[in-house]
């Protein structure tokens, strides 16, 4: 039956002949493991195409829906995180194999007559590959893609005369918006794949015409003596290589738990943009091209490098392929490669040792985790960013940055004239304050409180007690609290600090309900109140500047600074009856109705 069907099709199409022609290609000098990289690239490209098509069934390119749909792929579907991971890291795999392929072709001298066009189409394919990486990065519309792509489009803008026009065309306007995504999406899924296919067909056809470029040491006689058919000798090696590639890629995806998804793009934030690793050398190059020299890094050097690659077969016209006869060209290509590697390493090294960047990374990871949890309750049609609109920690952070950050530092960023709020309200923070209030981290020179000179253990007892006053202490130790209470009440603290009566006034702040929401609120409103700092106060009051909701958010944010607090505000579970059925809109799991509990299930390691 199968044979009959095959015969029927064969009689009408002659497909068997085509296959035979395609597969019986003689490989002069024998099938080799060194020839697998080109076909490995085709395998990876096919992998990108099919994973891309399947993801396109879920993806929605607009500034309000892109992040949500990628979130859905990543968190709500089975295997979505895996498919996205393969697609994401597949681009890196393609880049690595392409660089190996490129270097191998250069070493073998495979660009020489008659293979000049092979080389040129190869260079074009490499550029298209970079275009894929660039356009794909933006599509999730998360912080990382948004800000990194800003840099890229601004680089386009530095091209003299036409740059600005190209930039506006790519962005679909003078600024980022819906059309930026639709255009990048169209480039990524239509124009670039079609272009790649076009040049790939030429590239492969020319390869078949001229055959493999064997090792330069093999004589013509040796090449004639050993001829293997492409199928199965070479195809077997290609398949094994494809399997290895896929195994490494899948392993990498599992190891990383899929591709990263940052929080939704926030045009108001100051995110530190970093491109994908294969663009880092260009990114680093720009650091050395400042002011009027910017164009050297953005346009002149890259253009020179690409031009050199294009004209290489025409300047190196010597037919000898032995590397020892091509030292100058090796010097140029190698110095280019070494330069790129050095720049890449310099960029990674710098980022790994810059505390500002490390803090920023940490923050963005926390922010991303918060975004995932908030999005589980559903994203309003206003778009990804809207999940934060009702998140008090997010609002609080904004308010803090606008009003408090000038004096109070958090995680290394901010002013130094008032206490550092990193880890604010934790036992360690309180103990540090007790130990040395005049420390730069706390009140500095303006501190009038004397250091509490007690053993470390007693300091921890006191801070355990003080932390317990807020009523928010996680896993409090009753023994410690009791010992701390004794020390405070019977020691010297109570001489200056009232404890127990909310309205009592002494010369130092009233500690009744210390660091509780109510205490913080009153304090922020009027720190100069006589139950707090009185006339010695330096901090402005916010009674007229911030309304109640803003104060609540700010306090929620302050609470979140201590490590013992959850990073995501869990909103007191508000049972809300909405015409007929009950759901809690902001429950910790985003429980809308029993169905979601099922859909929330996902395959994740």
């Amino acid at each position, binding site marked *: 039956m199968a044979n009959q069907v095959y015969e029927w099709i064969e009689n009408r199409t002659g497909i068997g002949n085509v296959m035979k022609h395609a597969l019986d290609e003689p490989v002069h000098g024998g099938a080799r493991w060194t020839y697998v990289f080109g076909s490995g690239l085709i395998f990876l490209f096919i992998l990108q195409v099919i994973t891309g098509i399947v993801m396109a069934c879920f993806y929605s390119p607009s500034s309000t829906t892109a992040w949500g749909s990628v979130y859905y792929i990543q968190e709500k*579907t089975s295997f979505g995180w895996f498919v996205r991971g393969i697609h994401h890291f597949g681009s890196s795999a393609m880049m690595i194999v392409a660089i190996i392929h490129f270097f191998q072709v250069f070493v073998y001298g495979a660009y020489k007559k008659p293979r000049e066009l092979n080389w040129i189409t190869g260079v074009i394919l490499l550029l298209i590959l970079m275009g894929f990486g660039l356009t794909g990065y933006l599509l999730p519309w998360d912080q990382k893609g948004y800000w990194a792509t800003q840099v890229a489009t601004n680089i386009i803008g530095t091209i003299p005369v036409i740059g600005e026009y190209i930039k506006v065309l790519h962005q679909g306007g003078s600024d980022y918006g819906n059309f930026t995504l639709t255009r990048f999406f169209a480039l990524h899924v239509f124009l670039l794949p079609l272009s790649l296919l076009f040049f790939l067909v030429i590239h492969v056809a020319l390869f078949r015409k001229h055959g493999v470029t064997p090792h330069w040491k093999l004589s013509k006689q040796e090449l004639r003596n050993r001829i293997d058919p492409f*199928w199965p000798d070479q195809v*077997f090696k290609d*398949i094994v290589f494809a399997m290895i590639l896929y195994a490494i890629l899948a392993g990498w995806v599992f190891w990383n738990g899929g591709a990263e998804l940052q929080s939704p793009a926030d045009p108001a934030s100051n995110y530190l943009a970093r491109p994908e690793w294969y663009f880092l050398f260009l990114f680093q190059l720009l650091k050395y091209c400042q002011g009027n020299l910017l164009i050297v890094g953005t346009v002149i050097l890259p253009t020179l490098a690409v031009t050199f690659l294009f004209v290489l077969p025409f300047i190196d016209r010597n037919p000898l392929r032995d590397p020892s006869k091509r030292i100058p060209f090796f010097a140029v290509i190698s110095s280019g490669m070494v330069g790129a590697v050095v720049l890449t390493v310099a960029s990674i090294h710098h980022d790994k040792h810059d505390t500002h960047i490390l803090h920023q990374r940490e923050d963005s990871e926390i922010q991303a985790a918060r975004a995932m949890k908030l*999005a589980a309750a*559903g994203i*309003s049609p206003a778009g990804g960013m809207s999940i934060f609109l009702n998140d008090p920690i997010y609002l609080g952070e904004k308010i803090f940055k606008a009003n408090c950050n000038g004096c109070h530092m958090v995680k290394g960023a901010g002013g130094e004239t008032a206490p550092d709020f990193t880890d604010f309200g934790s036992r360690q923070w309180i103990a540090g304050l007790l130990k040395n209030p005049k420390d730069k981290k706390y009140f500095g020179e303006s501190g009038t409180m004397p250091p509490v000179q007690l053993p470390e253990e007693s300091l921890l007892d006191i801070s355990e007690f003080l932390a317990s006053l807020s009523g928010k202490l996680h896993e409090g130790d009753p023994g410690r609290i009791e010992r701390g209470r004794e020390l405070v009440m019977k020691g010297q603290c109570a001489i200056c600090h009232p404890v127990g009566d909310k309205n009592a006034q002494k010369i130092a702040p009233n500690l009744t309900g210390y660091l509780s929401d109510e205490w913080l609120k009153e304090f922020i409103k009027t720190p100069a109140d006589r139950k707090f700092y009185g006339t010695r106060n330096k901090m402005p009051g916010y009674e007229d500047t911030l309304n109640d909701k803003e104060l609540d958010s700010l306090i929620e944010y302050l609470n979140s600074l201590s490590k013992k607090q959850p990073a995501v505000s869990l909103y007191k579970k508000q049972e809300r009856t909405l015409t*007929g059925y009950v759901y809690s809109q902001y429950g910790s799991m985003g429980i*809308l109705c029993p169905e979601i509990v099922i859909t929330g299930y996902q395959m994740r390691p």
Partner: protein
Amino acid sequence: MIALFEILIEVCVTGGKTKKVEKARRKFLKIVSHILGGALAAGILAPLAGFLAHPLLKKTVYGTEDFIRLGSIDDFPIGIPKKMPVTSSKMDAWNIFEGLVMGSVWVIRQKDNSLQVLSTNCPHLGCGIDWGADVNKFLCPCHEGVFDIQGKVLSGPSPRSMYSFKTKIENNTVLVDYKNLI
């Protein structure tokens, strides 16, 4: 495996590279290539299929209420059909929509305060049905369908009477089960 044995036997017998050995070796490579290629394809396609089949395995649109509030019983005059929009919340994949208009219904309050809620779509081809106050009948303008106030088909091409919905009244509030046509 057979091909592998062939190679082994041949190599043992002849002790070297003969055409027969080459042939058997290629046969072996072909078989292994098919097996490995198939395994690779399966390893790639399985997660893709699982991902693509997501809408078959789990609901992508949900969260609509079973009984949707139409209004208070007093909003509806006795004996005169009133058209009411139906609004509900809905989770559409990643988006939550609140107060989305899903459609509309005809509500007729009877003298005994019982309610009849009819679909506004004609059972013939889905056109919107109007209330003809002058003739006291429901009229479908597309193909001149005519229905009485109970929704019973009087004339025209409709194969059946107008669709209706299950309703209930709780604390003077009218609730309709909009998902299920009767």
